[in-house]
């Protein structure tokens, strides 16, 4: 029992990034790649994994170096750390998933400028231990990636009428027949292929999250409210 409750307290920071402080839905950070690349599931997943990877490692590195770096020059040092990590993931993607690398294009090097990464380095990793920073990076990265993939699936479904198209770019040739086609003569809904569709999808997701939060709050209030006790004098 004790070990489970310990585990839960350890996992709590994970939930923060996924729900309460979700970088995409609550902090609204990193919107440029979020809106630019979420036009299909495979693109979204590729960028989500890359960003999470950079975020975890950069948080760990920044946290390691935090005691050696003077406060006045911390930003250039952090940026250099993040940039070298981004370059290495760019090279890794060129080596293993070259076609996906080509589709994502400029958005891979642009991970450097993703404000989630520098934001977490400043706000969390520069003040906390390596392990805590790694968990924070993982939770923020996953929160970003999950939203990215959700928008990707929605936009691919509405825009192109397919889901999981081109997944072989990421998972190898066995994923070729993962593609689900809704209808053969589905007319392309170009609005959702283009960036404005991403804005609307993100808005709908934020609205959905707010509704769930509101419902939860109301139900919690009702649970806390004490029942009336009627004392009947006889």
């Amino acid at each position: 029992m004790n070990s489970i409750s310990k585990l839960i307290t350890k996992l709590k920071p994970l939930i923060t990034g996924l729900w309460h402080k979700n970088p995409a839905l609550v902090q609204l950070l990193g919107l440029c790649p979020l809106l630019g690349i979420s036009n299909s599931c495979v693109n979204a997943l590729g960028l989500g994994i890359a960003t999470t990877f950079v975020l975890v490692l950069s948080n760990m590195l920044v946290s390691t170096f935090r005691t050696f770096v003077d406060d006045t020059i911390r930003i250039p040092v952090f940026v250099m750390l993040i940039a070298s990590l981004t370059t290495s993931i760019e090279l890794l993607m060129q080596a293993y998933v070259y076609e996906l690398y080509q589709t994502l294009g400029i958005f891979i090097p642009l991970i450097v400028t993703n404000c989630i990464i520098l934001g977490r380095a400043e706000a969390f990793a520069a003040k906390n231990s390596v392990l805590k920073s790694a968990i924070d990076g993982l939770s923020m990265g996953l929160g970003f990636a999950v939203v990215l993939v959700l928008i990707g699936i929605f936009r691919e479904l509405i825009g192109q009428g397919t889901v999981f198209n081109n997944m072989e770019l990421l998972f190898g040739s066995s994923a070729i027949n993962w593609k689900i086609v809704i209808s053969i003569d589905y007319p392309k809904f170009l609005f959702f292929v283009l960036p404005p569709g991403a804005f609307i999808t993100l808005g709908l997701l934020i609205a959905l999250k707010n509704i769930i939060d509101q419902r939860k709050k109301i139900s919690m209030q009702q649970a806390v409210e004490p029942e009336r006790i009627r004392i009947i004098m006889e």
Partner: protein
Amino acid sequence: MWKNIFIQDKLHSSTKLSVQQIMFFVLLAAVPGIITQFICFGWGAFLQLVWCMLLAVAFEAFILKLRNYKYTDYLPDNSALVTGMLLGVAIPPLAPWWFGLVGVGFAIVFGKHIYGGIGKNIFNPAMLGYALLLVSFPKQAATWLPASSTLLPQPSLTEAWGIFWGYAAVSADSFAHATPLDIIKNNNALTLNELWKSSQILDGIGGKGWVLVNISYAIGGLFLLYKKIIKWQAPLGMLLAIVIMAFFGWQGNNTSSAASPMFYLFDGATMLGAFFIITDPTSGATSNLGRLIFGIGVGILVYVIRVFGGYPDAVAFATLLMNITAPLLDYYTSPRAYGHKKADKGLPRTKS
């Protein structure tokens, strides 16, 4: 009369018309245009109109239910019907059923109620829906018909019905024809005189049928002006701007020339836009001078997009672009109460 541009009306309105009556008169004023459109483009145009108006009321009822309003509060105000009507006449006659569904749904749900419902939308809902359709489905948005006076084949009622629901043996492509604006836009080899002769759907002034449709909408618009439901500033500004811009672009009879001012005045959705769309009280400017500038802006944009832009007709995009500027126009043009500062220093900040 010219003083009217600068002198604002009394703030207390002297008309006693309710929203319901205003919207009813707008619908009534559109009737001549709708009838002419039916005569020129056949059953397809009528089907789209009825379908869009039905859908608009259905979506309005649905969203009112979601927002916990009573139907009786907002549904009888006819504003949804007007949105549906504007989309219905804008949608090409041979578009499939889902075309109107997507457009009206987007217009009512995203264009109107996301912003808070009637009176609170910053964009003209109908034009938002139409712009979405134009951007999303370029193929279906181009299924216009040649007017009946060209004697080119037009679908019968059953064919139009079949095309609408998608089960017809004939496809929409077998009837669809480029609109006059398309033809002018894609022309780069013929001089204007050669072009008038080469095309079956053009006559001397504009497209066959289209001139009549535009005149009918203008008549409806004059009725609205007479009833004092719309003001003359915005329509006049728009039409004047189109004429002046077209004079600059009209180089007589060479191949690179844009068409004559008459052509741009009586083709596409010019008159519908001038009298029914940019006079929308919610999304347009509200001061008299503001209305004039708003209209001029729409007119300039309409001409620029028609001649240089990627889309043949431009009223929707021009209106949406100018809708963004409406608050700024109001800010600089609305008259101040005596003793208040002029707008160049801004309204006094209210302490919150």
